């Protein structure tokens, strides 16, 4: 266990000092996913108030590429939220990349080993457009799945737009456009996250249930990146637009 705390400390220090480190599996090749989640939980314990959760590797194509058949999850520290209109200070990140996401706002607690997408939607009070700023603590985003789990699934900063009621919106089909400096960088529909964003969140609730955890009312869930992630530099602006939900703009300084 003290070893695991050491790994958690390495990642926490990398985050604080803005200095990327080699993947943990370079020196700890037997690191498996379950152990990696322990390393993640050790960091979570020191992360302060939680705003919610996030999913990663939700694209089936990406899963196939890295040889897994399920996504991964991480936590969102309240301190990492960017407010609407607040710029991202690139110099305070290691290697930031932006992804458009559908954000679910939980209207009530939700936990259980048999939760489905329908349960998730019933417990969701609103949805919003989000931009997640990934920031891997590993050099050049080189990592295995256990590595990225230990690194809280590359969670960096995030911004959440105006929530709107989810009733009547088919999250599977909504169109998603990510613009980078005024040009279309990528497009998708909500199905890009595990076939349906609510199915991705349901998977996470079931995974959390293994540890006796779940979602709480008021928490947000970033339900998975919907396009490829765009690298960010000072002076960049990214806009995520999602049909029926709205748009969010993020300026980088």
């Amino acid at each position, binding site marked *: 266990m003290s070893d695991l705390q050491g790994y958690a400390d390495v990642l926490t220090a990398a985050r604080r000092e803005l200095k990327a480190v080699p993947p943990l599996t370079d020196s700890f090749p037997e690191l498996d996913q379950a152990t990696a989640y322990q390393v993640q939980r050790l960091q979570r314990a020191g992360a302060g108030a939680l705003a919610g959760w996030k999913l990663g590797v939700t694209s089936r194509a990406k899963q196939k590429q890295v040889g897994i058949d399920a996504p991964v999850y991480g936590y969102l520290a309240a301190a990492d939220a960017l407010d609407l209109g607040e710029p991202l200070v690139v110099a305070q990140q290691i290697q930031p990349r932006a992804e458009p996401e559908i954000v679910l706002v939980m209207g009530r607690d939700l936990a259980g080993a048999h939760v489905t997408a329908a349960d998730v939607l019933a417990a969701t009070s609103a949805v919003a457009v989000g931009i997640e700023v990934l920031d891997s603590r590993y050099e050049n985003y080189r990592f295995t799945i256990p590595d990225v789990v230990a690194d809280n699934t590359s969670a960096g900063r995030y911004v959440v737009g105006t929530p709107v009621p989810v009733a009547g919106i088919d999250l599977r089909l909504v169109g998603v*456009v990510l613009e980078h400096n005024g040009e279309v960088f990528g497009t998708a529909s909500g199905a890009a996250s595990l076939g349906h964003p609510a199915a991705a969140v349901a998977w996470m609730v079931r995974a959390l249930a293994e540890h006796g955890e779940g979602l709480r009312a008021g928490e947000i869930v970033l339900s998975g990146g919907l396009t490829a992630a765009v690298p960010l530099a000072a002076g960049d602006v990214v806009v995520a637009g999602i049909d029926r939900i709205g748009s969010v703009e993020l300026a980088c300084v």
Partner: protein
Amino acid sequence: MPLTDAPAKARLLYEARRDRTAIPPFTDADPTLGMADGYAVQSELTKLLVADGEEIVGYKVGLTSKPMQKMIGVDSPDFGPVFASTVYRDGDSIPLSRFIQPKIEAEIVFVLGERLEGPGVSLTQAARAVAGVAASVEIVDSRFADWRIKLADTVADLASNGAVATSSRLVPLADVDPRLIGMTLTRNGHLVDTGAGAAALGDPVAVVAWLANTLGANGIAMEPGHLVMTGALHAAVPMAAGDVWRADFDRLGPVTLRVVEGTTEETK
């Protein structure tokens, strides 16, 4: 020099289409061939097909996404005619035998309600001329071996058009923002890819304006009822017999195609 042998090249493509046998790309023998050479061949090939009784019912626009343009090394789209004999309906079976090496692309299609003639067509004029927008898929096919195409080759080959299938549900443009229409493509129920309208030139309406202005420069007008296939919203995917493809568009509905082996006699 290259332009003068456009009729001969058109004849080679005409025979490749008829015999369903791929030929070496024209740019193998002459790498200097460019876009103008391609359109000169396309124009001759179109004449041959129209002489056979084919009817132009619209156009497809290709190379509308930045990744595709980068791959071919251009910074503008290309176009080719869509012929009546290649138009399928939602739910149809489509015979593989009709093609050489087909791939499927989900696209937004516009149907013109008014005549539209460039040059000088603006986005708002293009939008005004559109009667409605619908879900569609395009089957792209190349008459060149192994899809080993450069710009002049694909332009000559009717912009690699094979067939199209469209939904009959025509949605007024006033009710939708085509940039944000989401699309989910499945094969046999499994998710293959997703996209949104903005993948086509940033705005599918811009594709209509580009086409009107490009055709207009050659004195060609688009007519009421013409289809405009606005370009793939994702990377094209090879098709196989037994596949059931479904492109589901938010606000527009789905298009479903069943792929069957077929025989050359069954072609429409």
